[in-house]
């Protein structure tokens, strides 16, 4: 399995999950991620795993809760409206500290919206679309290869921290095909002595739970969670930098937008304009260190999103508003072209744009 194959991003997620030892998939069809359940419905029976098409996204995330609580490596996937429906379940999964992978291949909204690519679920993914103040690790691939690699990483991190991990992609990366190498399973095998598997001689029952009726106990639980989140912040920030060292203008983009930004930077450099790219790979924890560093050397930042502006808040927070942070976005499935971005770059570097 270490030869390159041509795969859709969605398929790469599925095959990487199989390679990572995921043997339980629960999901519900929705464009543009339906290739994931479809692929799983083929593959799982072949590897002795379970593919179950749930009656809804709500049921799917709660099946994930059950399977994760029972000790399995498990995943679900959906797209924007379906992910909204999973918010209660995600909060429960985070509250009960259950490891699992949740994939959101974003489409345009709000509401039914459309089925074309978007990045307008950034807030939902990173700030907690569910209630109660939990955190998920959020990973944002920008290529089919990363779809596969971050899937494996996601399972590792989920088990390591006993926490849900969200893979946040967009319709473009989900639908596009690129060469990809599905690596051999490089995830850690983790013991799950806490799982509800039947007592089988164990003295005390294992309980999977997020209920703490006494306020002080719930606060203790939250404090434990916050400690864990601090640990994640310390260890799990991931990003990529391209041409940032001498850059006057730092483009900030994730997922497909980062790919387009890269093309735009090529054009800019050809035209003697010093633009660079800072690509957050972990959207939560948001990779603050490079922002702090680059806020010293660059003159401005330009956040690019397929939304009306969400990550820009984290960019401003990470840079402590030390330098102007500009924004350019498209919504509803419209995708910006490298040329569009280049024009924004020009406007800023030629000083025609107020902040």
């Amino acid at each position, binding site marked *: 399995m270490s030869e*390159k194959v*041509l795969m859709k991003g969605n398929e790469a997620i599925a095959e990487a999950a199989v390679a990572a030892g995921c043997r339980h998939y629960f999901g519900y069809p929705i*464009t*543009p991620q339906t290739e994931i359940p479809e692929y799983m419905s083929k593959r799982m029976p072949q590897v002795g795993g379970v593919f179950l098409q749930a009656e809804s996204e709500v049921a799917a995330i709660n099946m994930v809760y059950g399977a994760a609580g029972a000790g399995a490596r498990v995943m679900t996937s959906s797209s924007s409206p379906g992910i909204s429906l999973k918010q209660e379940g995600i909060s429960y999964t985070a509250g009960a500290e259950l490891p699992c992978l949740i994939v959101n291949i974003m489409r345009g909204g709000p509401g039914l919206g*459309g*089925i*074309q690519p978007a990045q307008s679920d950034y807030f939902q993914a990173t700030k907690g679309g569910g209630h109660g103040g939990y955190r998920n690790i959020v990973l944002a691939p920008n*290529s089919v290869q990363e779809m596969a690699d971050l899937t494996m990483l996601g399972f590792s991190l989920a088990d390591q921290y006993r926490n849900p991990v969200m893979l946040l992609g967009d*319709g*473009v990366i989900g*639908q*596009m*095909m*690129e*060469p990809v190498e599905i690596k051999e399973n490089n995830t850690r095998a983790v013991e799950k002595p806490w799982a509800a598997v039947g007592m089988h001689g164990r003295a005390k029952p294992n309980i999977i739970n997020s209920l703490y009726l006494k306020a002080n106990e719930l606060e203790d639980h939250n404090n434990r969670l916050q400690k864990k989140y601090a640990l994640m912040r310390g260890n799990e920030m991931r990003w990529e930098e391209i041409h940032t060292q001498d850059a006057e203008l730092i483009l900030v983009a994730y997922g*497909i937008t980062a*790919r*387009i930004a*890269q*093309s735009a930077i*090529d054009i800019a450099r050809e035209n003697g304009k010093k633009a660079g790219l800072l690509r957050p790979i972990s959207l939560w924890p948001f990779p603050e260190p490079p922002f702090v560093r680059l806020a010293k050397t660059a003159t401005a930042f330009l956040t690019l999103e397929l939304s009306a502006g969400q990550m820009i808040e984290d960019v401003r927070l990470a840079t402590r508003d030390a330098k102007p942070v500009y924004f350019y976005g498209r919504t509803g499935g419209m*995708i910006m*072209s*490298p040329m569009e971005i280049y024009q924004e770059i020009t406007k800023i570097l030629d000083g025609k744009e107020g902040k």
Partner: protein
Amino acid sequence: MRHEIIMSGFGGQGVLLMGQILTYAGMLEEKHVSWIPSYGPEMRGGTANCSVIITEGLAGSPMVEEPTAAVVLNLPSLDKFEAAVRVNGVLIVNSSLIDKAVKRQDIKVYHVPVNDIAIELGNLKMANMVALGALIAAIDAVEMEVLFTAFAKKFASKPQVIEANKAAINRGYDYVKKSLN
């Protein structure tokens, strides 16, 4: 050369597969490649299209806005993509179904009766492969041998179809090469 190609036609005409095989070939030549389909309900009964990038440089954005080459297998596709083709770019027109004249003067246009050729070869379903051959003749994006390998790999489980399709690709290729003379 960075090839940015759009292939477009009716839902059943196999344009997505055609794009995948080209992309596969590009991958076998160790180029940077990407393929992306249009998707959604407009596929139903309407047109389908895909964008293919084959390049030795940066992969970058997989979206194609100004194709260096376009293959249009039906009239709506011509209407949709004629204007987008880059100056000096290539347009392969399925003349079996499209009798509308192409207006652009600043691009290279090849009229190929891919349906007729495919029917002549005994299977209308191979029209897409005829078109693929024609495209390669026009833009030389990959080696023909590699294209055959790509097809063979993709259809490894159905070896019986390989030869016929190879013939279809060749026929398309020859048709364009001949017109180049």
